[in-house]
């Protein structure tokens, strides 16, 4: 293990000289966790996530993490992660598709308990029938759990977003979990060049006493404290307490916006935003979108590309503004339900501008030609 030096997040993210290496998405997870000063990671196997947690296990064996073990199920892992976070340590875990669904009750519980857990989701299809292939359907289910959601386009994003997720999640005015999503196989199991900060640098340790909620260690007051107290009486004070508690999670998501802008450079990225037709995508659909946009522009078509990086918080105002001057928003997606198009429709003024296509699922790849066909149609 390299001896590591703690540096400011800004230095690690923006100033330290980066080295380019050819690596898989799973290896990018390892490189991020190596520099994230994580205390504990808990794992459970599921394709296509397993490899990244094997690699986290390897760096635990080398001494980069203090604790690592395999739990008995995703629900138990997410529960153990919650216990660890309440005990005041920085934790990491990862899952995929069926694992996400098995653990589901824990996600709103993390958010409600204000736990700054970082979890990577290597998205895959869910049963039935069983598939291990990429599909972003699980993200539709997670949109309203209260967790922050970032979507990586490639291994570089995955590396950067995981590291930045810890810093954003742990802000006192945020302090809710972050899910970093990446399309399974397409990114986890393919290689690309990733620029990483030197391995002898790491983030500052988590300070549990910066949390807006008490740490469960009997070293901080109040000691007469339940995490989290029940508010289930049949009276208005109880209803109001539960309602305001839920609103506070949403408010924490809102307060996260400024941190997302600062560390991720914005909730979205736009290329040619002035164009009349925009391809709006998240995850690897952005890459196919980019190819289609380049091909269309070679044909002389006026088209731009919007890459969404943060889905929670959702770039509501940004999209509404972009949509105002556009004629059409084409939303390519890797799932059956078209949840991203639904999200976009929920914020634009004229929903008829939103084209919820092309859509592939079940593990299919997305030929850029399908997107190009939509662009041609919209430009005609």
């Amino acid at each position, binding site marked *: 293990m390299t001896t590591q030096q703690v540096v400011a997040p800004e230095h690690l993210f923006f100033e330290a000289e980066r080295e380019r290496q050819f690596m898989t998405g799973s290896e990018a997870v390892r490189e991020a966790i190596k520099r994230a000063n994580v205390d504990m990671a808990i794992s459970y196997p599921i394709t296509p996530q397993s490899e990244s947690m094997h690699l986290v296990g390897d760096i635990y064996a080398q001494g980069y993490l203090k604790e690592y073990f395999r739990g008995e199920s995703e629900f138990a892992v997410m529960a*153990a*992660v919650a216990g660890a976070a*309440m005990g005041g340590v920085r934790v990491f875990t990862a899952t995929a598709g069926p694992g996400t669904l098995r653990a589901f009750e824990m996600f709103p519980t993390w958010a409600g308990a204000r736990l700054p857990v970082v979890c990577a989701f290597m998205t895959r299809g869910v049963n039935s029938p069983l598939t291990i292939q990429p599909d972003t359907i699980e993200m539709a289910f997670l949109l309203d759990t209260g967790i922050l959601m970032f979507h990586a386009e490639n291994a570089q994003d995955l590396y950067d977003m995981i590291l930045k997720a810890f810093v954003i999640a742990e802000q006192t005015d945020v302090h809710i979990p972050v899910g970093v999503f990446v399309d399974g196989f397409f990114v986890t199991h393919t290689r690309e060049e990733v620029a990483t900060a030197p391995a002898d640098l790491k983030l500052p340790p988590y300070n549990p006493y910066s949390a807006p909620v008490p740490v*469960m*260690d009997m070293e901080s007051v109040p000691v*007469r404290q339940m995490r989290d107290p029940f508010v289930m009486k049949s009276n208005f004070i109880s209803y109001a307490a539960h309602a305001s508690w839920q609103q506070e999670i949403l408010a924490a998501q809102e307060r996260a916006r400024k941190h997302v802008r600062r560390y991720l450079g914005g909730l979205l990225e736009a290329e040619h935003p002035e164009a009349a037709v925009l391809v709006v995508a998240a995850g690897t659909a952005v890459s196919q979108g980019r190819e289609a946009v380049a091909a269309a522009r070679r044909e002389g078509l006026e088209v731009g590309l919007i890459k969404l990086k943060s889905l929670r918080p959702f770039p509501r105002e940004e999209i509404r503004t972009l949509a105002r001057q556009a004629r059409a928003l084409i939303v390519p997606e890797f799932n059956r339900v078209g949840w991203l198009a639904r999200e976009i429709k929920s914020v634009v003024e004229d929903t008829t501008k939103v084209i919820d296509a092309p859509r592939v699922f079940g593990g299919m790849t997305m030929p850029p030609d399908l997107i190009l066909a939509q662009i041609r149609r919209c430009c005609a």
Partner: protein
Amino acid sequence: MSKGLFRISPGFEDVMPAEYKELVTNGPYGRDLGVKDLGTFKELIEEHPLCAGCAEALALRLILASLPSPEDTVIVGSTGCSSLLFTQVAVQNIHSLFGNQNAVATGLKRALRLRFPDKVKDVVVIAGDGATVDIGLDMVMQSWFRRELITTIMLDNEVYANTGGQESGMSPQGAVLYMAPLGKKFPKVNLPEIAREAGCAYVATISPALPRRLGKVVRRAILVAREIGPSYVQVFCPCPTNFKWPSAQVLQKIRDRQKEGIFKVREYVSPEAEAYLAGLEVERQHDEQE
């Protein structure tokens, strides 16, 4: 808990509730008190909404009075009647979900060991029979397989009490309860045996009808979990409300069941745990002589 941490901030003396002030001046933290000292100190448990005559509430009162180091104990509970009481308990405690208590405790215990390597932090799980033997059994047993250094205490009231009296794995065979309209078809789950086979170094069954014995058992279980291995205590405390007994009769019912041999007080101590406890006993006598 660091010395001096638990005090009233200057200027707040008049606004803090009386019972909190009493906890500060006469609480059990760092004092090595037990069931025999009840009545001489301010207990961890405050007024709570459990039914009059609830055997589970009595069991909890005794358990809380028996914690060897309340100042360094974190409790993990689960949804059920007991969790309605834990908001009023003066040690930090976690309610996460119904049934995930041993998984939460696993993460918590490991986190506290990382953060306080030179201090003992006791993590004690206290949950109902439904939480322990039904919905959470997987995580309970897995924590034992992994030899997590936590104590698991089941409040065996023989029913899903908090949801209105449904059959649980710990209900007696034949009991007619909600969701068992023709009577329960299988006997009480023998979790103490399972605990022993699954790797617990200390296993005991007890009831609040034997307060001192209960105190001793809880203390031994928590001490064993510090060094030797997981420990399990099953507290027999049937629910008067759902079995429709006059609340004043609960302790007698427990005694009757013990007399009939249906409920047995038992203790299993592994050889390592036995040696460890004997060593602590010698140390304690030595300290007392000094």
